[in-house]
């Protein structure tokens, strides 16, 4: 048995106790943030001033900024047009590994389009790319990082989506799973700036064609609205004295908890906010990222998704209303587990199975051998790991 359950058992009581204390702290902070959200609901200019003021001393500031709707806005869903085109993209990858016989990386992207209301069979497009050897094994000797592969995958998803959605009958919505914002650890990967430039070019392509693009985030951990509200000075002298301390303490509440009580009905959306961050501000104003929260749950069981959209979409209320209706329709298709049907299908099409991973590796090994190249062996570590997975009789 690999895990000593007796050791785990001994720790369970204190673990649960910590969780309870954490929950109580979150509830207390949540109440404070809710009070502030209501108190400042219409004071958008004051909040924008506070954010700008904070940014002067904090260059790494990352928070939300209200666009033009009261903070406590609840905008109900409108009806879905009879015909609407949807396209969803998702990707998966094989990351290069020092432990494999050959270093290689594959990006697989799936795009599924659906003409809602047409009765037609959705179209599926998949694109698989074996990354150049010189990209995987970089000239200076390093190997392309997982973050680098993920970034290339994200870009390829969006390029393919742009090509596909352009041919769909209007109105059309293009969607990806996850944030539109490029969030990677710059230290973990080189060339982040060039990715940002390339990404801006792709977003510009969507913008120039007036296409509707969104990123759908399920179970968002984001707290940008909470961070924004944390900047509001406290009313009591005691809290004001401890302002910095209380700010830090208020930042641990996820926005979906904050919005949950407002967005009571399926299809309700929150106000739209802009993402304020160093990376976000590096984009031209039309491309800057915005977000809102959308209740895609059932009447008695709210489930909030975070929806990211670029500025040209966020400022077009007809496009936002269309997104709201289309996402509700897509998520309701999945019954008790609301999530956009088409994004799930794109994920299915993009997914690289373990078998496929092995087939690709064998193809590469065969090509190397035919070319007279030496092929390395699995690392001993990987060999033994694989052997462990197959063990049957000798488990303790």
């Amino acid at each position: 048995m690999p895990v000593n359950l007796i050791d785990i058992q001994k720790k369970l009581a204190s673990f649960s106790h910590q969780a309870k204390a954490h929950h109580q702290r979150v509830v207390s902070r949540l109440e404070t943030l809710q009070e502030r959200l209501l108190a400042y609901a219409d004071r958008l200019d004051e909040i924008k001033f506070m954010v700008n003021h904070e940014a002067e001393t904090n260059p790494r500031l990352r928070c939300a900024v209200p666009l033009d709707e009261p903070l406590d806005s609840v905008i109900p869903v409108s009806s879905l047009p009879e015909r609407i085109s949807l396209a969803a993209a998702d990707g998966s990858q094989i990351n290069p590994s020092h432990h494999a016989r050959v270093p290689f990386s594959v990006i697989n992207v799936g795009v599924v389009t659906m003409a809602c209301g047409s009765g037609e069979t959705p179209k599926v497009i998949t694109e698989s790319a074996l990354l150049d050897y010189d990209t995987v094994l970089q000239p200076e000797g390093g190997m392309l990082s997982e973050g680098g592969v993920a970034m290339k995958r994200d870009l390829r998803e969006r390029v393919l989506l742009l090509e596909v959605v352009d041919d769909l009958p209007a109105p059309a919505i293009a969607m990806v799973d996850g944030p539109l914002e490029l969030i990677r650890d710059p230290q973990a990967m080189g060339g982040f700036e060039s990715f940002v430039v390339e990404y801006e070019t792709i977003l510009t392509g969507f913008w120039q064609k007036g296409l509707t693009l969104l990123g759908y985030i399920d179970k968002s951990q984001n707290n940008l609205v909470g961070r924004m509200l944390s900047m509001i000075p406290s009313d009591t002298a005691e809290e004001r004295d401890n302002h910095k301390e209380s700010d830090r303490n208020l930042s641990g509440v996820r926005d979906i908890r904050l919005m949950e009580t407002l967005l009571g009905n399926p299809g309700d959306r929150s106000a739209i906010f802009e993402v304020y961050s160093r990376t976000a501000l590096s984009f031209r104003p039309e491309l800057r990222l915005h977000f809102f929260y959308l209740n895609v749950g059932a009447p008695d069981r709210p489930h909030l998704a975070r929806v990211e959209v670029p500025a040209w979409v966020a400022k077009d209320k007809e496009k936002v209303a269309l997104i709201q209706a289309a996402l509700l329709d897509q998520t309701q298709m999945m019954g008790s587990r609301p999530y956009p049907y088409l994004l799930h299908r794109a994920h299915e099409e993009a997914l690289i199975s373990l078998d496929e991973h092995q087939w690709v590796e064998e193809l590469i090994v065969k090509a190397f051998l035919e070319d007279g190249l030496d092929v390395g062996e699995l690392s001993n570590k990987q060999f033994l790991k694989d052997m462990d997975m197959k063990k049957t009789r000798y488990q303790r």
Partner: protein
Amino acid sequence: MSGIEIGRLLRSGTTGFVVGCKVQQSGAPSFGAMVRVPLEEGYQVYGLIYDIHIDDDGLIRQLITAENISEEVLRDNRENRTVPVEIGVLALGYEENGQVAHLLPPRPPLSLDVIYLCTPEEVVRFTGAGRLGYLRQILRDPKLPTDELLTAHLRQARAAHEAGGDQGWFGEAVQEVIALLKDDRQRLMAVLAAASEI
């Protein structure tokens, strides 16, 4: 030879095999229908469909919990997603160099061999050859729904023979079933009760 292609072989054995097909192909085959698998020049295996099976998966289970399913989603799942229909086939006999044999095939079909639905002429040629010995294969396996399977087969074969002008085949087939089940009165009565509905 012509015929409707219904799918390709997934796995096989001497007594039967399983065919996989896409959902839109599955409109053609039905329970009790005869199929054939051409293997090599002059050799093909005949069989009878005894089971049509559709597996579920996570997405299907999830979609079922939704209130309504749009036509586009329905078609996506039936045409794009690789959820095969599995068709169980009982081996009835084979044909080699023009000779039909009502015996288990000497070599089973291989993976991905194409399976065709038998035309009425092919049904007549196979079931009309010899002395109906293939009925043994249908009655042998107690796990099969023998009564219903035999009834479905006799109905199809009778129609094919009568369309070809042979009015006596059905009577001979029923007599053969009675002979084969003479020591199993309970099953015989069940089969005859089902056959009486033809």
